[in-house]
């Protein structure tokens, strides 16, 4: 039995994350990311297929008979926009895809359609605003994507997303869609370097941001013994300016992978929560518990499929989720990969011998 070589994050992995972050894959059209995923994993996985909704499902068999079948889910889609109407002169009305705060939109640069045509969501210059106008948010109906009269190829139904380009800033990573390209990159590494004791059912899912739709059908097909969703979750860890304690931080940057106990869609299986926490403690991997309440991951769909699947989620914290740029820490990403790998390496059927 060979030594376990746990996967690590190096320059190659960061370069892959950059490619993933810069690719455009708004819910429902994940092709740009799917292509990268397929290129990366097809030489490594035993079975790779794309299902009816566009999920990429891949298997890494265990080295022993009767091994635990573990589904790992990471969603490929990002939040973004869909063109609704051509208002002529290169101006396009658009709708939101996924949960976006309209207040973060004015002034942002975007990329539209399969050809990534650049545009701007315009904002009224401040010297032309009226009294009180700056206190109100601009309704979505008044916003337009302006492509500078270069919109001949753009039509209703085209998707668009923020134009942010990925950068590494020392210990931090900045880019759009790090929710959930961090999870996708992590899962790619695990497919390439799986722990040998489990059967790994990797699901790169679609349409998470609009209702966990890919995960639901992927879980039905995988029919695993248990599941872990790997995602990115908000960190609201900036200090409160009045010097009171920040008690609603959700997660904190630099405090390690965030283990979910409860969100709006899932009450994590306590056996899996305990297993992850104990693994982190004995492997000296920093970790945190995400504050209970709100939000959701693919686990919300997975755990209710068929006769039920014990599930938990682990996320890389990121500030400014669902905006044009997420800030994450490289160390949190490294520790998330390490935690999932170690947790799978010491997992066997005995975890299910105690009832939930």
């Amino acid at each position: 039995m060979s030594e376990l070589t746990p996967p690590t994050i190096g320059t190659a992995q960061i370069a892959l994350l950059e490619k993933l972050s810069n690719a455009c894959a708004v819910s429902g059209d994940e092709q740009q990311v799917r292509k990268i995923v397929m290129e990366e994993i097809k030489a490594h996985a035993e079975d790779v297929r794309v299902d009816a909704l566009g999920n990429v499902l891949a298997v890494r068999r265990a080295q022993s008979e009767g091994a635990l079948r573990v589904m790992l889910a990471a969603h490929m889609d990002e939040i973004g926009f869909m063109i609704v109407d051509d208002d002529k002169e290169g101006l396009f009305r658009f709708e939101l895809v996924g949960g976006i705060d309209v207040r973060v939109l004015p002034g942002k640069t975007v990329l539209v359609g399969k050809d990534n045509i650049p545009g701007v969501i315009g904002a009224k210059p401040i010297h032309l605003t009226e009294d009180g106008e700056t206190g109100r948010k601009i309704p979505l109906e008044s916003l337009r994507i302006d492509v500078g009269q270069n919109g001949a190829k753009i039509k209703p139904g085209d998707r668009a997303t923020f134009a942010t380009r990925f950068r590494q800033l020392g210990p931090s990573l900045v880019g759009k869609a790090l929710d959930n390209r961090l999870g996708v990159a992590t899962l790619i590494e695990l497919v390439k370097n799986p722990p040998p004791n489990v059967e790994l059912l990797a699901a790169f899912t679609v349409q998470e941001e609009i209702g966990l739709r890919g995960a639901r059908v992927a879980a039905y097909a995988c029919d695993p013994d248990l599941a872990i969703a790997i995602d990115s979750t908000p960190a609201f860890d900036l200090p409160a300016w009045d010097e009171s304690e920040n008690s609603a931080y959700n997660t904190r940057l630099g405090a390690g992978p965030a283990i979910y106990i409860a969100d709006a869609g899932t009450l994590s299986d306590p056996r899996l929560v305990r297993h992850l926490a104990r693994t982190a403690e004995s492997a000296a991997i920093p970790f945190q518990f995400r504050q209970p309440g709100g939000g959701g991951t693919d686990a919300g769909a997975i755990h209710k499929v068929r006769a039920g699947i014990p599930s938990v989620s682990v996320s890389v914290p990121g500030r400014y989720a669902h905006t044009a740029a997420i800030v994450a820490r490289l160390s949190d990403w490294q520790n998330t990969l390490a935690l999932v790998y170690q947790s799978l390496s010491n997992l066997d059927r005995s975890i299910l011998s105690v009832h939930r």
Partner: protein
Amino acid sequence: MKELIKKLVETVGPSGYESAVRELVQAEIGALADEMRVDALGNLIARKGAKAEGGMRVMLSAHMDEIGLIATHVDENGFVRFTTIGGVRPHTCIGGRVQFLNGARGLIYMEKPESPDRLPSFEQLYIDVGATSRANCPVKVGDIAAFDRPFVELNGRLVSKAMDDRISVAVMIEALRALKYSPHELYFVFSTQEEVGLRGATTSAYSIDPEIALSVDVTRVGDTPKDIKMEVSLGKGPAVKVRDGGMLSDPRVVRWMVDTAEKAGIPYQLEVLEGGTTDARAIQLTRAGVPVGCMSIPTRYIHSPSEMVDYNDVQQCVRLLVELISAPIQLG
């Protein structure tokens, strides 16, 4: 039966953390069921009997979980911030007592309200467990708590937290105990995570694949001062649910329940509930669909720490359930 009810309602078991309740149920029915198993979401599924001539595969579901609270933050002075598990409302919390799964006890209070006539939000509430700092607080982020109220009897009416839905759990246990014969393959499901979206019923119904199902749950009443008008009252017997916020009962099931009650001389009420739903909704939409209904136990003050049922109603519910499953079901 009151001792059983008291044991059940006083156990701490919010959604997702029902194991203490399940162990109690297992101890009560272990000798009565032909087969028992616990599934991936913690549902306890107990099979009784096999299909005889004219029998069906029948699923009965009462949920073990109660609404509760989960700690989100412990501040530097040892006060615990929390969010809810299931439909808890702020006004039923203030001044109330809680008990955590780990045994710690506390009370809920609130910050000074912004204005005296606005109800506080959960962000303005906190739990005081008597700690003086984060370091000596026995509670940490993620810890689970339920309301903490003792069971009392008031003039033939029973009051406690978690009558929703432990009273139905008790009814199902007593029905199983009283059952002498059934032509059906019966699945008594003590389900989990109903309060957060019928999750246990969803998966247990998939694995049982029943031909007909009844949920047993509480329903509200219209017999208290100046409340929403509703025909159901305490003391008038089990309620046969026609419709609630998430489900239209199969009319054939309603007719079967009404016919059975009338034939057996059991008082009953017809129930139309404008809000809320039960496990039956999830079961109805499982796989290719299931004919469902619900037997409701009339209850005052649902989702408060002091839910009230009428003991006669409860006993009649046991009787009706036994009658329903003791004979072939003519859906007609």
